[in-house]
Protein backbone atom coordinates (compact mmCIF):
# COMPACT_ATOMS: atom_id res chain seq x y z
CA UNK A 1 0.00 0.00 0.00
CA UNK A 2 1.24 3.48 -0.79
CA UNK A 3 0.19 5.46 2.24
CA UNK A 4 1.18 8.23 4.66
CA UNK A 5 0.12 7.83 8.28
CA UNK A 6 1.61 10.68 10.26
CA UNK A 7 3.54 13.87 9.77
CA UNK A 8 4.77 15.73 12.82
CA UNK A 9 7.07 18.62 13.65
CA UNK A 10 9.25 18.79 16.79
CA UNK A 11 11.57 21.29 18.40
CA UNK A 12 14.82 20.14 19.91
CA UNK A 13 15.81 22.55 22.59
CA UNK A 14 19.58 23.16 22.81
CA UNK A 15 19.50 22.48 26.55
CA UNK A 16 17.92 19.07 25.88
CA UNK A 17 14.37 17.85 25.61
CA UNK A 18 12.16 17.51 22.58
CA UNK A 19 8.79 19.19 22.24
CA UNK A 20 6.04 18.17 19.86
CA UNK A 21 4.88 21.25 17.98
CA UNK A 22 2.25 19.79 15.69
CA UNK A 23 1.19 16.34 14.61
CA UNK A 24 -1.20 15.39 11.90
CA UNK A 25 -2.47 11.86 11.37
CA UNK A 26 -4.37 9.74 8.90
CA UNK A 27 -5.36 6.62 10.82
CA UNK A 28 -8.61 5.66 9.09
CA UNK A 29 -7.14 2.30 8.11
CA UNK A 30 -6.75 1.26 11.76
CA UNK A 31 -9.60 -0.05 13.90
CA UNK A 32 -11.55 2.45 15.94
CA UNK A 33 -10.40 1.03 19.25
CA UNK A 34 -6.76 0.95 18.20
CA UNK A 35 -6.53 4.42 16.70
CA UNK A 36 -5.76 6.17 19.99
CA UNK A 37 -2.93 3.82 20.82
CA UNK A 38 -1.56 3.85 17.29
CA UNK A 39 -1.41 7.63 17.38
CA UNK A 40 0.34 7.62 20.75
CA UNK A 41 2.87 5.13 19.45
CA UNK A 42 3.55 7.07 16.29
CA UNK A 43 4.21 10.19 18.34
CA UNK A 44 6.32 8.25 20.83
CA UNK A 45 8.44 6.67 18.08
CA UNK A 46 8.76 9.96 16.22
CA UNK A 47 9.98 11.77 19.32
CA UNK A 48 12.39 8.96 20.13
CA UNK A 49 13.86 9.13 16.65
CA UNK A 50 14.23 12.91 16.76
CA UNK A 51 16.15 12.58 20.02
CA UNK A 52 18.48 10.06 18.39
CA UNK A 53 19.26 11.99 15.23
CA UNK A 54 22.20 14.38 14.91
CA UNK A 55 21.29 18.00 14.11
CA UNK A 56 21.52 18.39 10.35
CA UNK A 57 21.02 14.64 9.89
CA UNK A 58 18.49 12.44 8.21
CA UNK A 59 17.46 8.90 9.12
CA UNK A 60 15.07 6.32 7.71
CA UNK A 61 13.94 3.42 9.85
CA UNK A 62 12.04 0.41 8.62
CA UNK A 63 9.83 -1.33 11.15
CA UNK A 64 7.72 -4.21 9.81
CA UNK A 65 5.67 -2.74 6.98
CA UNK A 66 6.17 0.84 8.15
CA UNK A 67 8.84 3.41 7.46
CA UNK A 68 9.76 6.33 9.69
CA UNK A 69 11.72 9.17 8.11
CA UNK A 70 13.37 11.83 10.25
CA UNK A 71 15.01 15.10 9.38
CA UNK A 72 16.50 17.35 12.06
CA UNK A 73 17.58 20.74 10.79
CA UNK A 74 20.84 22.16 12.12
CA UNK A 75 18.94 24.72 14.24
CA UNK A 76 16.88 22.03 16.00
CA UNK A 77 13.60 22.12 14.11
CA UNK A 78 12.72 18.54 13.21
CA UNK A 79 10.08 16.69 11.21
CA UNK A 80 9.08 13.02 11.14
CA UNK A 81 7.00 11.18 8.57
CA UNK A 82 5.50 7.74 9.16
CA UNK A 83 4.54 6.01 5.94
CA UNK A 84 3.99 2.60 4.45
CA UNK A 85 7.13 0.84 3.25
CA UNK A 86 6.00 1.15 -0.35
CA UNK A 87 5.81 4.93 -0.30
CA UNK A 88 8.85 6.17 -2.28
CA UNK A 89 11.34 7.21 0.39
CA UNK A 90 12.89 9.91 -1.73
CA UNK A 91 9.55 11.66 -1.87
CA UNK A 92 9.23 11.25 1.90
CA UNK A 93 12.46 13.11 2.56
CA UNK A 94 11.51 15.85 0.17
CA UNK A 95 8.24 16.20 2.07
CA UNK A 96 10.12 16.53 5.35
CA UNK A 97 12.18 19.42 4.00
CA UNK A 98 9.02 21.08 2.75
CA UNK A 99 7.21 20.56 6.07
CA UNK A 100 10.06 22.14 8.02
CA UNK A 101 10.34 25.11 5.68
CA UNK A 102 6.59 25.66 5.79
CA UNK A 103 6.41 25.44 9.54
CA UNK A 104 9.35 27.78 10.08
CA UNK A 105 7.91 30.32 7.65
CA UNK A 106 4.42 30.30 9.11
CA UNK A 107 5.16 30.21 12.82
CA UNK A 108 7.52 31.48 15.43
CA UNK A 109 8.62 27.95 16.08
CA UNK A 110 11.20 28.70 18.77
CA UNK A 111 8.49 29.57 21.27
CA UNK A 112 5.59 27.60 19.86
CA UNK A 113 3.88 24.53 21.35
CA UNK A 114 0.92 22.32 20.49
CA UNK A 115 -1.47 24.87 21.99
CA UNK A 116 -0.30 27.85 19.92
CA UNK A 117 -0.16 25.77 16.76
CA UNK A 118 -3.68 24.46 17.18
CA UNK A 119 -4.87 26.33 14.11
CA UNK A 120 -1.85 25.62 11.94
CA UNK A 121 -3.34 23.34 9.29
CA UNK A 122 -0.60 23.13 6.65
CA UNK A 123 0.57 19.70 7.82
CA UNK A 124 -2.92 18.22 7.54
CA UNK A 125 -3.23 19.59 4.02
CA UNK A 126 0.16 18.22 3.07
CA UNK A 127 -0.58 14.78 4.51
CA UNK A 128 -3.80 14.56 2.55
CA UNK A 129 -2.37 15.92 -0.70
CA UNK A 130 0.69 13.72 -0.92
CA UNK A 131 -1.13 10.47 -0.19
CA UNK A 132 -0.77 10.11 -3.92
CA UNK A 133 2.96 10.21 -4.65
CA UNK A 134 2.18 11.37 -8.18
CA UNK A 135 1.49 14.77 -6.62
CA UNK A 136 4.94 14.78 -5.17
CA UNK A 137 6.72 13.99 -8.44
CA UNK A 138 7.03 17.65 -9.35
CA UNK A 139 8.26 18.43 -5.87
CA UNK A 140 11.02 15.83 -6.13
CA UNK A 141 12.24 17.32 -9.37
CA UNK A 142 12.67 20.77 -7.84
CA UNK A 143 14.59 19.42 -4.88
CA UNK A 144 16.91 17.16 -6.81
CA UNK A 145 19.81 18.20 -4.62
CA UNK A 146 18.76 15.83 -1.83
CA UNK A 147 21.88 13.81 -1.11
CA UNK A 148 20.73 10.28 -0.46
CA UNK A 149 24.03 9.03 0.93
CA UNK A 150 23.61 11.28 3.95
CA UNK A 151 20.46 9.44 4.97
CA UNK A 152 21.27 6.87 7.62
CA UNK A 153 19.23 3.73 7.14
CA UNK A 154 18.12 1.26 9.81
CA UNK A 155 16.25 -2.00 9.42
CA UNK A 156 14.52 -1.92 12.82
CA UNK A 157 13.75 0.60 15.51
CA UNK A 158 16.01 -1.30 17.87
CA UNK A 159 18.98 -0.50 15.61
CA UNK A 160 18.51 3.19 16.37
CA UNK A 161 18.73 2.76 20.13
CA UNK A 162 21.90 3.47 21.97
CA UNK A 163 23.89 0.77 23.63
CA UNK A 164 22.13 -0.75 26.63
CA UNK A 165 18.78 0.77 25.74
CA UNK A 166 15.80 -1.48 25.25
CA UNK A 167 12.57 -0.63 23.51
CA UNK A 168 10.50 -2.45 26.13
CA UNK A 169 12.03 -0.32 28.89
CA UNK A 170 11.50 2.90 26.97
CA UNK A 171 7.87 2.00 26.41
CA UNK A 172 7.38 1.07 30.07
CA UNK A 173 8.95 4.33 31.24
CA UNK A 174 7.24 6.59 28.74
CA UNK A 175 4.81 9.17 30.09
CA UNK A 176 3.26 9.88 26.71
CA UNK A 177 1.76 6.42 26.46
CA UNK A 178 -1.45 5.52 28.25
CA UNK A 179 -1.73 2.23 30.12
CA UNK A 180 -4.01 0.95 27.40
CA UNK A 181 -1.35 1.65 24.76
CA UNK A 182 1.26 -0.12 26.83
CA UNK A 183 -1.07 -3.09 27.03
CA UNK A 184 -1.51 -3.01 23.25
CA UNK A 185 2.25 -3.01 22.88
CA UNK A 186 2.65 -6.03 25.16
CA UNK A 187 -0.04 -7.99 23.34
CA UNK A 188 1.44 -7.14 19.96
CA UNK A 189 4.86 -8.26 21.19
CA UNK A 190 3.45 -11.56 22.40
CA UNK A 191 1.55 -12.18 19.16
CA UNK A 192 4.53 -11.36 16.99
CA UNK A 193 6.94 -13.48 18.94
CA UNK A 194 4.89 -16.66 19.08
CA UNK A 195 6.90 -18.30 16.31
CA UNK A 196 10.39 -17.71 17.67
CA UNK A 197 10.72 -19.53 20.95
Amino acid at each position, binding site marked *: *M*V*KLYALSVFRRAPEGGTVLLKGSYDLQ*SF*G*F*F*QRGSVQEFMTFTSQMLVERTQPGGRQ*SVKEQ*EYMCHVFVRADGLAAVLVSDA*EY*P*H*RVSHTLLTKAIEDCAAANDWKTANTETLRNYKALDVMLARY*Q*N*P*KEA*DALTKIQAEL*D*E*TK*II*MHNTIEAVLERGEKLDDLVAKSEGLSS*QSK*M*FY*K*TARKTNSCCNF
Partner: protein
Amino acid sequence: MGDARDPDEFFDLAEKIIQNINTVFEKDGSLDEFDIVPVESQSNRSPVIHVNHKLALESWCVPFLYSHSFKCFTQLLPNRKVSAGNHKNQHRNGSTSVRNGSIGSHEGHTFVNSRLTEGDRTERKLNLSRILILLNPDLTLAWNYRREAFIQCCMQFQHELHLVSLVASRKPKSSEVFMYRKWLVKHILNEDLKGDNIEQIFTREMQAAGKAAEAYFSNYHAWDYRRWLLETFLGGSFCPDEFKLTILNSEKNCSDNWVERHISDHSGFHYRQKLLSQMSLLECNVNGVFQLFTKELENNLSLVMRFPGHEALWYHRRFLLQFLVPKLQMELTENLNNHHQPMETNWECEVWQCCEDKIQYLKKKEEDLVKSILTVNASLVDDASVNFITKDSSNLSILYSQKHAKWLFMMFEWIIDNN
Protein backbone atom coordinates in the same frame (compact mmCIF):
# COMPACT_ATOMS: atom_id res chain seq x y z
CA MET B 1 -7.45 -17.40 31.77
CA GLY B 2 -5.10 -18.80 34.36
CA ASP B 3 -6.87 -18.04 37.61
CA ALA B 4 -8.96 -20.69 39.29
CA ARG B 5 -12.40 -19.22 39.49
CA ASP B 6 -15.43 -20.57 41.16
CA PRO B 7 -17.56 -22.28 38.50
CA ASP B 8 -20.68 -20.49 39.72
CA GLU B 9 -19.14 -17.10 39.39
CA PHE B 10 -17.82 -18.15 36.02
CA PHE B 11 -21.20 -19.14 34.81
CA ASP B 12 -23.01 -16.07 36.07
CA LEU B 13 -20.43 -13.72 34.71
CA ALA B 14 -20.43 -15.32 31.27
CA GLU B 15 -24.25 -15.26 31.16
CA LYS B 16 -24.20 -11.61 32.16
CA ILE B 17 -21.76 -10.73 29.40
CA ILE B 18 -23.86 -12.62 26.87
CA GLN B 19 -26.88 -10.70 28.11
CA ASN B 20 -25.01 -7.41 27.75
CA ILE B 21 -23.91 -8.19 24.22
CA ASN B 22 -27.46 -9.14 23.24
CA THR B 23 -28.74 -5.87 24.65
CA VAL B 24 -26.22 -3.93 22.58
CA PHE B 25 -27.36 -5.73 19.44
CA GLU B 26 -31.01 -5.05 20.26
CA LYS B 27 -30.41 -1.40 21.01
CA ASP B 28 -28.06 -0.56 18.17
CA GLY B 29 -28.96 -1.72 14.69
CA SER B 30 -26.07 0.00 13.00
CA LEU B 31 -23.00 -1.44 14.67
CA ASP B 32 -20.13 -1.20 12.22
CA GLU B 33 -17.06 -2.39 14.05
CA PHE B 34 -16.12 -5.12 16.50
CA ASP B 35 -12.82 -5.51 18.30
CA ILE B 36 -11.14 -7.05 21.30
CA VAL B 37 -9.27 -4.57 23.44
CA PRO B 38 -6.30 -5.82 25.44
CA VAL B 39 -6.96 -5.06 29.10
CA GLU B 40 -5.01 -6.88 31.73
CA SER B 41 -6.88 -6.68 34.98
CA GLN B 42 -10.59 -6.81 35.21
CA SER B 43 -12.35 -4.02 36.94
CA ASN B 44 -15.85 -4.10 38.34
CA ARG B 45 -17.47 -2.75 35.23
CA SER B 46 -18.74 -4.81 32.35
CA PRO B 47 -16.19 -5.85 29.75
CA VAL B 48 -18.60 -4.90 26.97
CA ILE B 49 -17.71 -1.52 25.49
CA HIS B 50 -20.20 0.19 23.22
CA VAL B 51 -19.37 3.61 21.83
CA ASN B 52 -20.22 5.36 18.62
CA HIS B 53 -21.78 2.27 16.98
CA LYS B 54 -18.65 0.25 17.72
CA LEU B 55 -18.61 -2.80 19.96
CA ALA B 56 -15.58 -4.13 21.83
CA LEU B 57 -14.83 -6.71 24.49
CA GLU B 58 -12.04 -6.48 27.00
CA SER B 59 -9.59 -9.26 26.34
CA TRP B 60 -9.65 -10.86 29.80
CA CYS B 61 -13.19 -12.11 29.40
CA VAL B 62 -12.71 -13.68 25.98
CA PRO B 63 -11.34 -17.16 26.89
CA PHE B 64 -14.04 -18.16 29.33
CA LEU B 65 -16.80 -16.36 27.46
CA TYR B 66 -15.88 -18.39 24.41
CA SER B 67 -15.69 -21.75 26.14
CA HIS B 68 -18.93 -21.10 28.00
CA SER B 69 -20.76 -20.08 24.82
CA PHE B 70 -19.35 -23.06 22.96
CA LYS B 71 -20.48 -25.49 25.63
CA CYS B 72 -23.96 -24.08 25.81
CA PHE B 73 -24.25 -23.90 22.05
CA THR B 74 -23.16 -27.47 21.34
CA GLN B 75 -25.51 -28.81 23.98
CA LEU B 76 -28.43 -27.16 22.28
CA LEU B 77 -27.71 -28.76 18.92
CA PRO B 78 -29.86 -31.84 18.32
CA ASN B 79 -28.41 -35.27 17.40
CA ARG B 80 -24.87 -34.13 17.26
CA LYS B 81 -21.93 -35.89 18.78
CA VAL B 82 -20.12 -33.48 20.98
CA SER B 83 -16.45 -34.27 20.87
CA ALA B 84 -15.73 -34.00 24.58
CA GLY B 85 -17.30 -36.91 26.45
CA ASN B 86 -18.00 -35.00 29.60
CA HIS B 87 -20.60 -32.84 27.90
CA LYS B 88 -22.78 -35.90 27.59
CA ASN B 89 -22.40 -36.71 31.25
CA GLN B 90 -23.21 -33.22 32.23
CA HIS B 91 -26.31 -33.38 30.13
CA ARG B 92 -27.50 -36.49 31.91
CA ASN B 93 -26.73 -35.03 35.27
CA GLY B 94 -28.53 -31.86 34.31
CA SER B 95 -31.73 -33.59 33.36
CA THR B 96 -31.73 -35.67 36.53
CA SER B 97 -31.29 -32.63 38.66
CA VAL B 98 -34.23 -31.01 36.95
CA ARG B 99 -36.34 -34.05 37.66
CA ASN B 100 -35.28 -34.13 41.24
CA GLY B 101 -35.91 -30.48 41.57
CA SER B 102 -32.52 -29.83 43.08
CA ILE B 103 -30.42 -27.82 40.73
CA GLY B 104 -26.69 -28.15 41.00
CA SER B 105 -25.42 -24.79 39.94
CA HIS B 106 -22.30 -26.05 38.21
CA GLU B 107 -24.56 -27.84 35.76
CA GLY B 108 -26.41 -24.59 35.46
CA HIS B 109 -26.06 -24.16 31.75
CA THR B 110 -27.63 -27.53 31.06
CA PHE B 111 -30.47 -26.54 33.30
CA VAL B 112 -30.94 -23.23 31.56
CA ASN B 113 -31.00 -24.99 28.22
CA SER B 114 -33.52 -27.65 29.16
CA ARG B 115 -35.96 -25.15 30.58
CA LEU B 116 -36.33 -23.24 27.32
CA THR B 117 -39.25 -23.43 24.91
CA GLU B 118 -38.59 -24.18 21.23
CA GLY B 119 -38.68 -20.50 20.21
CA ASP B 120 -36.42 -19.50 23.07
CA ARG B 121 -34.00 -22.26 22.18
CA THR B 122 -33.70 -20.97 18.62
CA GLU B 123 -33.17 -17.46 19.84
CA ARG B 124 -30.55 -18.57 22.32
CA LYS B 125 -28.74 -20.62 19.70
CA LEU B 126 -28.71 -17.63 17.38
CA ASN B 127 -27.35 -15.38 20.11
CA LEU B 128 -24.69 -17.88 21.11
CA SER B 129 -23.61 -18.54 17.54
CA ARG B 130 -23.35 -14.79 17.04
CA ILE B 131 -20.92 -14.51 19.91
CA LEU B 132 -18.98 -17.53 18.69
CA ILE B 133 -18.47 -16.20 15.18
CA LEU B 134 -17.53 -12.77 16.48
CA LEU B 135 -14.83 -14.31 18.64
CA ASN B 136 -13.80 -17.03 16.21
CA PRO B 137 -14.96 -16.57 12.63
CA ASP B 138 -13.41 -19.88 11.58
CA LEU B 139 -15.97 -21.94 13.46
CA THR B 140 -17.94 -23.53 10.62
CA LEU B 141 -20.31 -25.19 13.07
CA ALA B 142 -21.72 -21.85 14.14
CA TRP B 143 -21.99 -20.53 10.59
CA ASN B 144 -23.78 -23.70 9.52
CA TYR B 145 -26.31 -23.35 12.27
CA ARG B 146 -27.05 -19.85 11.02
CA ARG B 147 -27.48 -21.24 7.50
CA GLU B 148 -30.05 -23.73 8.75
CA ALA B 149 -31.86 -21.04 10.67
CA PHE B 150 -31.84 -18.75 7.66
CA ILE B 151 -33.47 -21.39 5.49
CA GLN B 152 -36.14 -21.81 8.15
CA CYS B 153 -36.71 -18.06 7.85
CA CYS B 154 -35.63 -17.14 11.32
CA MET B 155 -33.60 -14.13 10.31
CA GLN B 156 -33.65 -11.28 7.89
CA PHE B 157 -31.29 -11.10 4.98
CA GLN B 158 -30.20 -7.54 5.80
CA HIS B 159 -29.48 -8.33 9.43
CA GLU B 160 -27.35 -11.31 8.51
CA LEU B 161 -25.28 -9.32 6.03
CA HIS B 162 -24.82 -6.70 8.66
CA LEU B 163 -23.55 -9.23 11.15
CA VAL B 164 -21.15 -10.67 8.56
CA SER B 165 -19.74 -7.20 7.95
CA LEU B 166 -19.27 -6.79 11.67
CA VAL B 167 -17.30 -10.03 11.87
CA ALA B 168 -15.22 -8.95 8.87
CA SER B 169 -14.34 -5.66 10.57
CA ARG B 170 -12.15 -7.62 12.99
CA LYS B 171 -11.11 -10.51 10.75
CA PRO B 172 -11.13 -9.20 7.19
CA LYS B 173 -9.35 -12.22 5.73
CA SER B 174 -11.52 -14.98 7.13
CA SER B 175 -12.70 -17.27 4.33
CA GLU B 176 -15.80 -18.35 6.25
CA VAL B 177 -17.02 -14.78 6.27
CA PHE B 178 -17.01 -14.56 2.50
CA MET B 179 -18.33 -18.07 1.99
CA TYR B 180 -21.33 -17.22 4.13
CA ARG B 181 -21.80 -13.93 2.33
CA LYS B 182 -21.72 -15.68 -1.01
CA TRP B 183 -24.20 -18.25 0.25
CA LEU B 184 -26.59 -15.53 1.42
CA VAL B 185 -26.40 -13.56 -1.81
CA LYS B 186 -26.88 -16.69 -3.93
CA HIS B 187 -29.90 -17.52 -1.86
CA ILE B 188 -31.46 -14.12 -2.30
CA LEU B 189 -30.69 -13.97 -6.03
CA ASN B 190 -32.65 -17.17 -6.53
CA GLU B 191 -35.74 -15.38 -5.32
CA ASP B 192 -37.60 -12.88 -7.44
CA LEU B 193 -35.98 -9.52 -7.32
CA LYS B 194 -36.82 -6.11 -8.64
CA GLY B 195 -34.33 -3.82 -10.40
CA ASP B 196 -33.69 -1.43 -7.52
CA ASN B 197 -32.94 -4.27 -5.22
CA ILE B 198 -30.36 -5.72 -7.55
CA GLU B 199 -28.47 -2.45 -7.76
CA GLN B 200 -28.66 -2.00 -4.03
CA ILE B 201 -27.34 -5.48 -3.32
CA PHE B 202 -24.55 -5.10 -5.83
CA THR B 203 -23.33 -1.75 -4.54
CA ARG B 204 -23.45 -2.88 -0.94
CA GLU B 205 -21.60 -6.11 -1.59
CA MET B 206 -18.92 -4.35 -3.59
CA GLN B 207 -18.44 -1.93 -0.73
CA ALA B 208 -18.14 -4.77 1.75
CA ALA B 209 -15.53 -6.54 -0.39
CA GLY B 210 -13.66 -3.27 -0.90
CA LYS B 211 -13.55 -2.56 2.80
CA ALA B 212 -12.10 -5.99 3.58
CA ALA B 213 -9.53 -5.66 0.80
CA GLU B 214 -8.46 -2.29 2.17
CA ALA B 215 -8.12 -3.70 5.68
CA TYR B 216 -5.78 -6.54 4.81
CA PHE B 217 -3.00 -6.61 2.24
CA SER B 218 -3.50 -9.04 -0.67
CA ASN B 219 -6.81 -10.21 0.73
CA TYR B 220 -7.47 -13.16 -1.57
CA HIS B 221 -10.89 -14.03 -0.16
CA ALA B 222 -12.22 -10.52 -0.50
CA TRP B 223 -11.02 -10.16 -4.08
CA ASP B 224 -12.25 -13.60 -5.02
CA TYR B 225 -15.66 -12.72 -3.65
CA ARG B 226 -15.63 -9.54 -5.63
CA ARG B 227 -14.72 -11.42 -8.79
CA TRP B 228 -17.53 -13.87 -8.15
CA LEU B 229 -19.99 -10.98 -7.74
CA LEU B 230 -18.82 -9.38 -10.95
CA GLU B 231 -19.14 -12.55 -12.98
CA THR B 232 -22.48 -13.50 -11.43
CA PHE B 233 -24.07 -10.12 -12.06
CA LEU B 234 -22.67 -9.72 -15.55
CA GLY B 235 -23.64 -13.25 -16.55
CA GLY B 236 -27.02 -13.35 -14.83
CA SER B 237 -30.29 -12.86 -16.67
CA PHE B 238 -31.73 -11.14 -13.62
CA CYS B 239 -29.56 -8.13 -14.26
CA PRO B 240 -30.73 -5.55 -16.85
CA ASP B 241 -28.26 -4.75 -19.65
CA GLU B 242 -27.91 -1.05 -18.90
CA PHE B 243 -27.01 -1.89 -15.32
CA LYS B 244 -24.30 -4.25 -16.55
CA LEU B 245 -22.67 -1.30 -18.32
CA THR B 246 -22.88 0.78 -15.16
CA ILE B 247 -21.27 -2.05 -13.24
CA LEU B 248 -18.33 -2.24 -15.64
CA ASN B 249 -17.78 1.51 -15.59
CA SER B 250 -17.99 1.93 -11.84
CA GLU B 251 -15.75 -1.08 -11.24
CA LYS B 252 -13.19 0.24 -13.71
CA ASN B 253 -13.08 3.57 -11.87
CA CYS B 254 -12.77 1.82 -8.56
CA SER B 255 -9.95 -0.39 -9.77
CA ASP B 256 -8.15 2.58 -11.36
CA ASN B 257 -7.96 4.24 -7.97
CA TRP B 258 -6.97 1.02 -6.27
CA VAL B 259 -3.95 0.14 -8.42
CA GLU B 260 -2.52 3.64 -8.01
CA ARG B 261 -2.25 3.04 -4.28
CA HIS B 262 -1.64 -0.71 -4.07
CA ILE B 263 1.14 -1.42 -6.48
CA SER B 264 2.19 -4.77 -5.10
CA ASP B 265 -1.21 -6.28 -4.35
CA HIS B 266 -1.51 -9.04 -6.91
CA SER B 267 -5.03 -10.01 -5.80
CA GLY B 268 -6.20 -6.54 -6.77
CA PHE B 269 -4.47 -6.81 -10.13
CA HIS B 270 -6.02 -10.19 -10.77
CA TYR B 271 -9.44 -8.67 -10.28
CA ARG B 272 -8.53 -5.93 -12.71
CA GLN B 273 -7.54 -8.57 -15.26
CA LYS B 274 -10.93 -10.25 -14.95
CA LEU B 275 -12.56 -6.87 -15.34
CA LEU B 276 -10.57 -6.05 -18.46
CA SER B 277 -11.45 -9.44 -19.99
CA GLN B 278 -15.12 -8.69 -19.39
CA MET B 279 -14.76 -5.24 -20.93
CA SER B 280 -13.04 -6.65 -23.99
CA LEU B 281 -16.11 -8.80 -24.66
CA LEU B 282 -18.08 -5.62 -25.28
CA GLU B 283 -15.71 -4.41 -27.97
CA CYS B 284 -17.03 -5.38 -31.38
CA ASN B 285 -13.69 -5.76 -33.14
CA VAL B 286 -10.04 -6.32 -32.43
CA ASN B 287 -9.38 -2.62 -32.86
CA GLY B 288 -11.37 -1.71 -29.77
CA VAL B 289 -9.64 -4.37 -27.71
CA PHE B 290 -6.33 -3.06 -28.94
CA GLN B 291 -7.16 0.45 -27.81
CA LEU B 292 -8.40 -0.67 -24.42
CA PHE B 293 -5.29 -2.72 -23.76
CA THR B 294 -2.71 -0.28 -25.10
CA LYS B 295 -4.16 2.31 -22.75
CA GLU B 296 -3.73 -0.14 -19.90
CA LEU B 297 -0.17 -0.89 -21.02
CA GLU B 298 0.55 2.85 -20.88
CA ASN B 299 -0.81 3.07 -17.32
CA ASN B 300 1.23 0.08 -16.32
CA LEU B 301 4.33 1.62 -17.88
CA SER B 302 4.01 4.77 -15.79
CA LEU B 303 3.59 2.68 -12.60
CA VAL B 304 6.61 0.52 -13.45
CA MET B 305 8.67 3.67 -13.90
CA ARG B 306 7.37 5.38 -10.78
CA PHE B 307 7.67 2.38 -8.43
CA PRO B 308 10.77 0.39 -9.30
CA GLY B 309 11.15 -3.14 -7.97
CA HIS B 310 7.53 -4.29 -7.66
CA GLU B 311 6.96 -7.65 -9.29
CA ALA B 312 3.15 -7.53 -9.33
CA LEU B 313 3.30 -4.73 -11.90
CA TRP B 314 5.36 -6.86 -14.26
CA TYR B 315 3.00 -9.81 -13.92
CA HIS B 316 0.13 -7.55 -14.82
CA ARG B 317 2.03 -6.48 -17.92
CA ARG B 318 2.51 -10.12 -18.89
CA PHE B 319 -1.21 -10.69 -18.66
CA LEU B 320 -1.95 -7.71 -20.88
CA LEU B 321 0.42 -8.86 -23.60
CA GLN B 322 -0.61 -12.46 -23.35
CA PHE B 323 -4.21 -11.41 -23.86
CA LEU B 324 -3.66 -8.95 -26.66
CA VAL B 325 -0.92 -10.37 -28.88
CA PRO B 326 -2.52 -13.79 -29.59
CA LYS B 327 -5.74 -11.97 -30.53
CA LEU B 328 -3.86 -9.93 -33.10
CA GLN B 329 -1.97 -12.95 -34.36
CA MET B 330 -5.20 -14.88 -34.75
CA GLU B 331 -6.70 -12.07 -36.77
CA LEU B 332 -3.63 -12.15 -38.94
CA THR B 333 -3.72 -15.89 -39.66
CA GLU B 334 -7.46 -15.80 -40.28
CA ASN B 335 -6.94 -13.18 -42.92
CA LEU B 336 -4.19 -15.22 -44.45
CA ASN B 337 -6.26 -18.41 -44.51
CA ASN B 338 -9.23 -16.72 -46.06
CA HIS B 339 -7.14 -15.57 -48.98
CA HIS B 340 -5.06 -18.29 -50.55
CA GLN B 341 -4.75 -16.23 -53.61
CA PRO B 342 -2.94 -12.91 -53.34
CA MET B 343 -5.06 -10.28 -51.72
CA GLU B 344 -7.14 -8.45 -54.23
CA THR B 345 -8.77 -5.50 -52.65
CA ASN B 346 -7.00 -2.69 -50.90
CA TRP B 347 -9.25 -3.04 -47.95
CA GLU B 348 -8.09 -6.59 -47.19
CA CYS B 349 -4.53 -5.49 -47.54
CA GLU B 350 -5.18 -2.72 -45.08
CA VAL B 351 -6.66 -5.01 -42.42
CA TRP B 352 -3.73 -7.35 -42.74
CA GLN B 353 -1.21 -4.55 -42.66
CA CYS B 354 -2.97 -2.98 -39.71
CA CYS B 355 -2.62 -6.08 -37.52
CA GLU B 356 0.96 -6.56 -38.51
CA ASP B 357 1.65 -2.92 -37.64
CA LYS B 358 0.04 -3.31 -34.26
CA ILE B 359 2.16 -6.29 -33.36
CA GLN B 360 5.26 -4.45 -34.43
CA TYR B 361 4.15 -1.44 -32.42
CA LEU B 362 3.76 -3.53 -29.27
CA LYS B 363 7.10 -5.18 -29.78
CA LYS B 364 8.76 -1.80 -30.19
CA LYS B 365 7.10 -0.59 -26.99
CA GLU B 366 8.39 -3.54 -24.98
CA GLU B 367 11.84 -3.05 -26.42
CA ASP B 368 11.83 0.60 -25.37
CA LEU B 369 10.58 -0.28 -21.89
CA VAL B 370 13.22 -2.91 -21.21
CA LYS B 371 15.97 -0.72 -22.61
CA SER B 372 15.01 2.38 -20.64
CA ILE B 373 14.61 0.42 -17.39
CA LEU B 374 18.02 -1.13 -17.90
CA THR B 375 19.80 2.14 -18.67
CA VAL B 376 18.11 4.18 -15.92
CA ASN B 377 18.72 1.56 -13.25
CA ALA B 378 22.20 0.60 -14.34
CA SER B 379 23.27 4.20 -13.89
CA LEU B 380 21.58 4.31 -10.45
CA VAL B 381 23.39 1.17 -9.31
CA ASP B 382 26.72 2.69 -10.26
CA ASP B 383 25.89 6.09 -8.78
CA ALA B 384 27.82 6.67 -5.56
CA SER B 385 25.37 9.27 -4.24
CA VAL B 386 22.49 6.79 -4.09
CA ASN B 387 21.72 4.80 -0.96
CA PHE B 388 21.18 1.09 -0.69
CA ILE B 389 17.40 1.10 -0.62
CA THR B 390 17.35 2.74 -4.04
CA LYS B 391 20.03 0.35 -5.19
CA ASP B 392 18.04 -2.65 -3.99
CA SER B 393 14.96 -1.58 -5.90
CA SER B 394 17.07 -0.77 -8.95
CA ASN B 395 18.62 -4.20 -8.90
CA LEU B 396 15.16 -5.74 -8.65
CA SER B 397 13.98 -3.63 -11.56
CA ILE B 398 16.87 -4.84 -13.67
CA LEU B 399 16.11 -8.43 -12.73
CA TYR B 400 12.42 -8.09 -13.57
CA SER B 401 13.05 -6.39 -16.89
CA GLN B 402 15.50 -9.14 -17.88
CA LYS B 403 12.95 -11.76 -16.89
CA HIS B 404 10.41 -9.87 -18.93
CA ALA B 405 12.63 -9.94 -22.01
CA LYS B 406 13.13 -13.68 -21.56
CA TRP B 407 9.42 -14.22 -21.22
CA LEU B 408 8.72 -12.18 -24.35
CA PHE B 409 11.07 -14.45 -26.25
CA MET B 410 9.45 -17.61 -24.91
CA MET B 411 5.91 -16.36 -25.52
CA PHE B 412 6.15 -14.57 -28.85
CA GLU B 413 9.74 -15.20 -29.95
CA TRP B 414 10.44 -11.50 -29.78
CA ILE B 415 14.15 -10.98 -29.47
CA ILE B 416 15.02 -8.11 -27.18
CA ASP B 417 18.55 -7.15 -26.42
CA ASN B 418 18.80 -7.06 -22.63
CA ASN B 419 22.38 -6.56 -21.75
